[in-house]
C-alpha cells in the first residue's frame, strides 16, 4: 500500500520535529534544532532495516519516492515565494554582507571537505587562527 510509505514518511517528520522543538526548548533557543535532519536519520534507519521492509519496499516505497521526486517542483515553488523584493530593497549593506558570507563559505567547502578523510590530513589551523 502506497499510503504506508507516506505514513512512515509523515511519522518520521513528526517525530523529528518534536525532538527538534524539544532540543530548542532544552537549549533555550527560539528555533527547531535539526528537526528535519533528525527525521531524515529516522528514514535512513528505517529504509536500511529489514524490520521496516513492509513499509519501505514495493508499493509503500513508491509512496516515499513520489515525494522525493516532488522535491524539485516544491523547491521551484519555494523560490517563487521568497521575499526577493525585500532582499533587493535591503541596499548595499545587506547585499555586501550576504555576498561576502556566501563567498567565504564557498571557499571553505574544499578545506573542510578534506576533514572527512578522503584526502590529506586536516589543515584547519590557519582558519581557526582567524576565528
Amino acid at each position, binding site marked *: 500500500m502506497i499510503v504506508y510509505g507516506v505514513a512512515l514518511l*509523515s511519522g518520521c*517528520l513528526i517525530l*523529528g*520535529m518534536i525532538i527538534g522543538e524539544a532540543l*530548542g526548548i532544552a537549549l533555550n*533557543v*527560539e*528555533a*527547531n*534544532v*535539526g528537526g*528535519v*535532519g533528525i*527525521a*531524515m536519520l529516522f*528514514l*535512513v534507519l528505517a529504509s536500511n532495516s529489514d524490520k521496516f521492509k513492509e513499509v*519501505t519496499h514495493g508499493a509503500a516505497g513508491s509512496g516515499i*519516492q513520489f515525494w*522525493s521526486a*516532488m*522535491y524539485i*517542483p*516544491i*523547491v*521551484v*515553488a*519555494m*523560490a*517563487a*515565494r*521568497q*521575499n*526577493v*523584493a*525585500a*532582499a*533587493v530593497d*535591503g541596499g548595499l*549593506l*545587506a*547585499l555586501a*554582507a*550576504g555576498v*561576502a*558570507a*556566501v563567498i*567565504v*563559505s*564557498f571557499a*571553505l*567547502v*574544499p578545506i*573542510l*571537505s578534506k576533514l*572527512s*578523510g*578522503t584526502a590529506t590530513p586536516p589543515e*584547519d589551523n590557519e*582558519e581557526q587562527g582567524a576565528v
Partner: protein
Amino acid sequence: MDILETVFVRNNLIVAFAVVGVTIWISYFLADKLTQGRIHGSAIAIALGLVAAYFGGVATGGNTGLADVTLLGGIGLMGGGMMRDFAIVATAYGVHLSELKKAGIAGVISIFAGVIVSFIVGAAIAVMFGYTDPTAITTIGAGAVTYIVGPVTGEAIGASDAVITLSVAAGLVKSILVMIGTPLVARHIGLNNPQSAMVFGGLMGTTSGVAAGLAATDPKLVPYGAMTATFYTGVGCLLGPSVLFFIVSAMF
C-alpha cells in the same frame, strides 16, 4: 473573470501544481535548446521562480513573492515550510548510513565553522558601514548567518526594527545567492560527493538556499546537504544572542 477567480482560489494548491509543472517544462526546454544542457533545467526553473517572486513582491507589496498574487496563492502552500521539509525528508530514502558516518565529524565542524565565519563576515561588513553599536553589529552579523537567526538574535538583544529588517535582507541575499551560485561554483569547490555535500550544507546553512542550490547541481546530493543544513539555524540561534553577542560587546 469571477468564475475563473473562484475556481483558481478554491483549488489553489492544484493551480500551483499546474503552474510549477509548466514552468519546469519550459525550463527544461530552454536548458536543452539554448544551453545544450550546460545549465541544469532545475537551475533555470529556480531562477524563473525567483524572478517571478520579485515581480510578485513588487506588484503586491507582500512578503511571500508570487504567493501574494491572489490567483497564485497555492504557491505559498506548495513552497511553504511544511511541504519543503516533507520533501526534503523523502530525499533521504535510499541514503546509506555509511556515507553519513564518513562525513560525521567534518559535518559537525562545518556547522559551527559556517555559523561563526558567516557571523564574522557580516559583523565586519556592518563595522565597515560605520556601525559601532554592539547590538546592531551582532544583529547584522546574525543576519548573514540566516534570515531567521538575524531577527531571533535582534529581538533577543533588543536591536531596532530597522537593523532587524537589514539583517533579514542580508540573510535573504545569502539564501538567493546560494540558490543561484551553487551550480556555478560546484565544480571548483569539489562539490560532487556526499561528504562534500554534507560539509557544504553545514557551511551554508540556509535550508532554502542549500535545498535549491543542490537540486540545481545534482539532486543526488540533496539529502546529504540538507541533513547538516537543518542544524545550522538552531546552532545560529544558540550562539547569536549569547556567545557571539558577548564577544562583540567586549570588543565595542
